[in-house]
């Protein structure tokens, strides 16, 4: 895949022209929430159904409002903004996991979100979760077999005894988080998106995972990183998108955007 795309890039684009990997075109994302505020009791709800009133329980959350940008090969892009500004939603839309209300996202290959939490089951052993998580991410059985030992060693789960053969619900929260990260980081990605919550575990593990993220960045064409820690954005990203209330406030070089963001949040 990587070879092929480099090929096309070399074949069509004149030297010096940057190759886009992700293009967002006036993207709007709307969540429809059914379990919103419930007014009244059962009879009131029934009356609403009988009168065919639009159910008051469906509420719309306009999470991303008209965001456009173009990301290029080799860029590492940070996403900043206050809680609920639409950063994670934007990542999911780029990954094609949330259908846009209007607008479009074009991507080169299949962007993937770094995270497999949802595929793992607490009642299963760590061992089976490694396999299940790998398969859920689209790895083949052979790939998983090949990388299995690497994943277990990286997580450090077995440093304190044979924990990998115990159900995940017996793990401490730190251990479980480490295993999750190790599984998620085992796959190669074209366009990689990292959500902040990943920086977990003890100091030693954090160092190891930061190194792994840098490695993944080198392998991936483009990296998106959501973080609330400006330091980690400054360390890893060369371009920053600042989102606020679902709108793109600023898009530019890291220093420039972070300076404006810090000025805004300081006041």
């Amino acid at each position: 895949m990587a070879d092929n795309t480099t090929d096309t890039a070399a074949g069509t684009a004149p030297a010096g022209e940057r190759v886009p990997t992700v293009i967002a075109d006036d993207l709007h994302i709307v969540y429809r929430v059914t379990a919103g505020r419930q007014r009244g009791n059962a009879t009131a709800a029934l009356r609403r159904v009988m009168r065919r009133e639009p159910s008051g329980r469906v509420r719309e959350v306009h999470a991303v409002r008209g965001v456009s940008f173009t990301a290029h090969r080799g860029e590492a892009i940070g996403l900043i903004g206050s809680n609920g500004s639409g950063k994670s939603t934007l990542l999911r839309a780029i990954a094609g996991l949330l259908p846009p209300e209007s607008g479009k996202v074009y991507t080169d290959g299949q962007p993937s979100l770094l995270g497999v939490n949802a595929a793992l089951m607490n009642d299963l052993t760590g061992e089976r979760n490694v396999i299940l998580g790998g398969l859920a991410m689209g790895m083949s059985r052979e790939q998983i077999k090949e990388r299995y030992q690497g994943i277990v060693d990286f997580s450090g789960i077995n440093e304190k005894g044979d924990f990998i053969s115990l159900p995940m619900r017996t793990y401490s929260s730190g251990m479980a988080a480490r295993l999750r990260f190790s599984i998620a980081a085992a796959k190669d990605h074209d366009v990689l998106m990292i959500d902040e919550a990943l920086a977990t575990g003890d100091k030693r593990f954090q160092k190891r995972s930061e190194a792994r993220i840098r490695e993944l960045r080198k392998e991936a064409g483009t990296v998106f990183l959501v973080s609330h820690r400006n330091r980690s954005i400054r360390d890893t990203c060369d371009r920053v998108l600042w989102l606020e209330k679902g709108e793109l406030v600023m898009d530019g070089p890291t220093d420039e955007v972070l300076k404006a963001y810090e000025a805004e949040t300081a006041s």
Partner: protein
Amino acid sequence: MSETTHERATSAAPPPPGENLSAAELAARHGLAVSGARPSLPAYVRQLWGRRHFILSFSQAKLTAQYSQAKMGQVWQVLTPLLNAAVYLLIFGYLLGGRGGMDMPEYIPFLVIGVFLFTFTQQSVMAGVKSIPGNIGLVRALHFPRASLPISFVLQQLQQLLFSTVVILVVLIGFGHYPSWTWLLVVPALLLQLVFNSGLALVFARWGAAVPDLAQLMPFVLRTAMYGSGVLFPIGHILDGRDVPSWVADVALANPISVYMELFRHATITDGPHHGDLAGYFWLLAVGYALLALVAGFVYFWKAEERYGRG
């Protein structure tokens, strides 16, 4: 995928580089595809086939996780269906006397087969309804053909049914029905039911994704279906002595749930007033229902592929 990217990029005549290209033009120029777009039907089938290992191990994982908190663990795989059959036997066999002229050695296998096979379809439908809302986290985090979920849950139910089948075989032998060549017909009958249930689960998965309330409604619909398909007593027996034309019984017998059950019963219970020869068209019906459900269900589910996970 990489091939198509390649073709698209090279076949388009390279326009002069410029900053004023529209997003769509720029995307086309570099061979970028719309993210999250619904693949074509053949491509979708290929993707699903590529995920077969995931589908299988997800269903096995769900099955294992189901009883992992119980002290007796996987023993419940067999105990649960056995207890279910015991409850129905107590109520319909002894208390209500719904035996329909069958002796115990004929009625008990009849009942056990009915209950287990109905449970297979019932659980497939319920799992289908919940497959998207119940796994919304997975749908929103990872990319895979969404049909993997309902299919995986039906396979989970099939594995559960295989445990139940062991119970059925023990019950059959225990009541003096000994294995014969016709027992082999159980295999194609179960496979056809599996295909039918998969199709059904796919349809209900799309409905359940749109209206999660179905999960509350379906148990009632399914219970009605149970009493109407001759699970607990022969359909003919209920209609006997009532003023209904005989085709009513024929139509009731031809409903898919009843068809798969009758095939299994007639393959294994070979003697008894209610288990003579089964009309040959039952196999035709079984194949027809299975194919219809699978094709219609699959296409219907695929049509909304890009919309699962919203809201």
